[in-house]
């Protein structure tokens, strides 16, 4: 009897929490809709962007979400390509997070376009010398691969769910795309394709999607601070940091909400990966600063001065990027590795910290005028920029919450050894 009441308690708790959660997301989205209406009505004048600082919060969030996506995808490839079964519990979630992050990234960059309605020009017209031109196409290809992979990884569970008579069943039926093959061979075929697609996806994610996004900045010779070959590498490494952190966060929170069992060994191992990537990331960033400083180029030096000592450096660099994004998570990992909660807090902090990292990439170099005598810039996102950003993120969380409650994101049975080996446990 008592166990039943506990179970009931948990369900009511989850139910009321669910209402609060969706209500919260609704508020976020309403704020976003208001911001969006201002943005559409008045154009970019609603932002604090100027001709001196043409890129700001939306571009920062855009590269942030591209990074999350690439990071999450690369993590999923550990499972689907390299057969690391210890992470299999987050395989589908990683793919889902990668897809949704990409959706958000595209929403942010569309917000940022001066002429939103002409976004299709970027697909129709092609400049073979422009990195951005290739990027747009890589994004498309990448999302297609992600969706196919997610479908393949869930196909059998979708078919099983399709037998149910509720909404979940109906959606599963649609998502299974008419496939009814539950045979062993078909599962093996799925895994084979997952491996192939994952293998194609890895170079696309590294060099095309996120390295490419880094290259977008790195090729700009006029911005000395961005113009180094290490920049795309930093992008990829920090993508791994943020992607891993996001998945740890999602996984633990979801298990807690659903009353599931948190796989502590897996979380610890993921946290280890995250901290490892983070340390490499910091090292590479140090080189980036060193290259800038050694160049003695006044543009690069001024950028560093703004980064470390500018008006918002206390918040964005010292507090955001360094303290929240690096020092505390590293400390938590090495001191409280045994506590899942500590690891969760560390991961959440990293997720937020990388936002600051992205802002610190985009904004500081633009504040410095290109020629002596031109006016310098000043930038802090406007209320419309904040509101739309909050709205887009709220929308993303909504998509995520709906997806995980409707799609079979959790494994019904462990993935078999990739390549069709024998099932080794339950």
């Amino acid at each position: 009897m008592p166990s039943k009441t506990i179970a009931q308690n948990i369900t009511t708790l989850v139910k009321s929490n669910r209402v609060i959660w969706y209500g919260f997301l609704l508020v976020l989205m309403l704020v976003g809709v208001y911001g969006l209406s201002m943005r559409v009505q008045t154009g970019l004048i609603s932002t604090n962007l100027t001709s001196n600082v043409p890129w700001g919060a939306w571009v920062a969030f855009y590269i942030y979400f591209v990074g999350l996506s690439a990071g999450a995808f690369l993590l999923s490839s550990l499972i689907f390509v390299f057969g690391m079964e210890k992470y299999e519990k987050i395989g589908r979630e990683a793919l889902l997070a990668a897809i949704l992050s990409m959706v958000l990234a595209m929403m942010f960059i569309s917000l940022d376009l001066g002429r939103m309605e002409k976004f299709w020009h970027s697909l129709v017209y092609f400049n073979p010398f422009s990195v951005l031109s290739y990027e747009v196409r890589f994004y498309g290809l990448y999302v297609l691969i992600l969706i196919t992979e997610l479908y393949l990884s869930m196909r059998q569970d979708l078919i099983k769910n399709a037998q149910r008579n509720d909404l979940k069943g109906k959606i599963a039926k649609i998502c299974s795309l008419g496939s009814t093959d539950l045979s062993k061979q078909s599962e093996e075929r799925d895994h084979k394709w997952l491996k192939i697609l994952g293998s194609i996806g890895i170079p696309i994610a590294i060099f095309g999607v996120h390295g490419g996004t880094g290259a977008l900045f790195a090729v700009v010779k006029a911005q000395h601070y961005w113009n180094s070959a290490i920049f795309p590498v930093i992008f990829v490494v920090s993508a791994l940091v943020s992607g891993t952190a996001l998945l740890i966060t999602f996984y633990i929170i979801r298990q807690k909400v659903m009353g599931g069992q948190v796989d502590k060994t897996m979380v610890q191992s993921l946290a280890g990966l995250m901290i490892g990537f983070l340390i490499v990331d910091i090292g590479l960033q140090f080189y980036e600063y060193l290259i800038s400083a050694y160049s003695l180029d006044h543009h690069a030096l001024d950028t560093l001065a703004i980064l470390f000592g500018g008006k918002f450096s206390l918040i964005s660099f010292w507090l955001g990027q360094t303290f929240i994004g690096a020092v505390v998570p590293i400390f938590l990992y090495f001191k409280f590795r045994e506590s899942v909660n500590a690891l969760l807090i560390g991961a959440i902090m990293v997720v937020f910290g990388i936002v600051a990292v992205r802002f610190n990439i985009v904004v500081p170099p633009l504040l410095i005028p290109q020629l002596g005598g031109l006016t310098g810039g000043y930038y802090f996102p406007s209320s419309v920029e904040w509101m739309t950003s909050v709205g887009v993120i709220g929308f993303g969380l909504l998509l995520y919450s709906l997806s995980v409650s409707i799609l079979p994101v959790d494994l019904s049975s462990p993935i078999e050894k990739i390549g069709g080996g024998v099932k080794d446990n339950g």
Partner: protein
Amino acid sequence: MVKENIKEKISRRDFFKSSSFGAKAWAAELLAEDEARPKETKWAMVIDLQKCIGCDTCTVSCKAENRTPPGVTYNVVLKEKVGTFPNVTKINTPRPCMQCDQPACKQVCPVKATYKMKNGIVAIDYNRCIGCRYCMVACPYGARYFDFGENYEQEMLGYNSYQTNEYGVEKGERKKKAPVGIVRKCHFCFHRLQRGEEPACVETCLGDARYIGDLNNPDSIVSKLVHSGRAVRLKENMATEPRVYYLK
């Protein structure tokens, strides 16, 4: 420079002659065609910094000519104090778009909205530009401006009722359409050049510091000034090959 060109051609001809691929006739035809073609005008600007008095007339006349909105100034005069007291001077550097021969802005544009015309001018296709502003961060001269859609209607009645026919294209009233929401920059007053007029800044310059002309014509004033030994360009290390020369 002209001599160099001739040398280059001769060596090319020699190359074709000596080639044993049996393509001689074709090569000869190609060369003949090459020589027969009249050289196109390729615009360049020369600004004499010794003559510039920093009066900002160019900036103002450019604004009037192109009816640029607030925040968009195709031409500015950069004023810098150099040296320490008492040995100080002021350097005025007018800065239009450099119409670079290797434009960083054109390189990065994802939709080819920015392109180089045969006459040397770097143009923007207002209808194609999506307003991503990549070109703005790439231009080493800060020559590009985003049109946020502001206007001078408060100060100047009827500002919105007419737009300059930049690039020779009639634009009509200023509404919410492009060029609002896209990137704009100096184009050497291409619409005036088409009519046989000098750019507004050149025509109105008080100190007569600005020259416009054809750099393909060795006898033009700009060619002579460019080869006078006084000519420098801004940020040569950027490899953008600007078509605006400054006389020290």
